């Protein structure tokens, strides 16, 4: 399978990365090189093989659904590019 420039633009939109026309063209070639490389996997017989979901056999750890942390609004907004009164500031979303 290979991608065309329109597909690259659509995927970039899904990934929320702005790409120029030139970049999309260049990336089309690069992504096709990678997709061509992974095509080798078609040689492998995977009939009846379960997908690997965990490399270590271990039952999922569970914890009590309790409050163990909190009251750190300052810490959480400390690194925000824009914040006010411990809220993250973003451009207007709702008209």
């Amino acid at each position, binding site marked *: 399978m290979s991608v065309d420039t329109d597909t690259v633009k659509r*995927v970039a939109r899904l990934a929320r990365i*702005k790409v120029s026309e030139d970049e999309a063209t260049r990336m089309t070639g690069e992504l096709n090189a990678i997709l061509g490389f992974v095509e080798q996997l078609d040689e492998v017989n995977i009939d009846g093989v379960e997908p690997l979901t965990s490399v270590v056999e271990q039952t999922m750890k569970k914890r009590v659904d309790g409050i163990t942390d909190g009251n750190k609004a300052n810490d959480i907004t400390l*690194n925000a*590019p824009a914040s006010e009164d411990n809220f993250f500031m973003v*451009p207007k979303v709702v008209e």
Partner: protein
Amino acid sequence: MTDLTKLTIADAREGLKNKDYTSQELTEAFLNNIEAANAQLNAYVAVTADKARDMAKASDEKLSKGEGGALEGIPLGIKDLFATEGVHTQACSHILDSFKPAYESTVTSNLWADGAVMLGKLNMDEFAMGSSNETSYYGPVINPWRKNGSNQDLVPGGSSGGSASAVAARLCMGATATDTGGSIRQPAAFTGTVGIKPTYGRCSRWGVVAFASSLDQAGPIAHTVRDSAILLKTMASVDPKDTTSVDVEVPDYEAAIGKSVKGLKIGIPAEYRMDGMPNEIEELWQKGIAWLKDAGAEIVDITMPHTKYALPAYYIVAPAEASSNLARYDGVRYGLRVPGNDIVEMYENTRAEGFGEEVKRRVLIGTYVLSAGYYDAYYLKAQKVRTLIKRDFDLAWANGVDAILTPATPSAAFGVADQDLHSDPVKMYLNDIFTVTVNMAGLPGISVPAGVDKDGLPLGLQLIGKPFDESTLFQVGQVIEDAAGSFEPQKWWG
């Protein structure tokens, strides 16, 4: 007076205890080396000199009272991927500009609890994506090694290139690193240092900036097998904050060092002999086999038929997980923000400017393989192939193999801005061909320096172990180190 920066961690541990020198003297010696060398090597992206001096002073107070932890007063470098409270933590990406976490990663917390001293944060490939440490927003790291008679700059490997370069050039006693496809073992091999990626689940991933969560593992880079065992003992822990941290007690890894390897079964997988592999790599491998045989190990040929599919499967799984993990960098909660006319344009502008080319490439590949209609053809298939890769290893262990010996990399270090490698992303990816199988199966792997190539550049051998059997890797690794000796670059910097 002896050059304190030439000591191993094991030596310094004794020297500090015997009060031959202080941690402050030791720390100052490393700060001087960093000051002199960093403009040329670019190994550190932030030097925390004041913090280092404070920590060293506190260590000296403990040491003077005969107290202190396993790493009391030992100066270390920390890869920029580890969250360090109030200190530069940006995964060497533009998108995390000025980020200083309000918390400390579990691995670094363990180091400080045992008395280690932080010298600063080390350069790396952006978000740990790269094999040459050239994708860093802070520019490439330079390998302290050069070809005989050449002054061409070489890469230290990646993504933990800053860690490897800093250890090799004596800018720290040891360093933390992380490995998703080979990012500890490949740079260790390129710089004549020892690097171990432990079993998945051995070191907590809490507070380590995520790349591919099912593959990422932290581990140390150091000068000797023993030093890497000392560091891993402290870095590893069982951590309730990471649900994939495994409840297995951390053994005393040093206890394995010096034990005979007599009777151990070492597997040699034919599939790690690649077309076009330089003769020197094959010769190094044969040398390693001979050393282990001389030491009494039993050498057995094994077959791992799915080896060649590990790298293509990795380039589906890792980008898929990365595209998901990196979705959080949107210009809202931390780091860079580039304005736009609306919130979506702000996201798109921020991510376009904040991510470098390699990161964008992988986010796009990951988004594509996870997008509607392609999931089964790519991601699900890759995870099934991963089951087969793991099964190859499981079969070897079931047949009584104790460890597997392979080359660490298909070549020695290459030049910075190598045209051939930069013309095709897949060529760069092939650097990880021998290391990536280990991540796909979640196993421990160690790279030990074993010789030099025709140009005098270091080469490494890799040992792969059973899950949570890092001890055997240290035991066998020591035999290789004893036979091969140690490797020190000719000083041209600073």
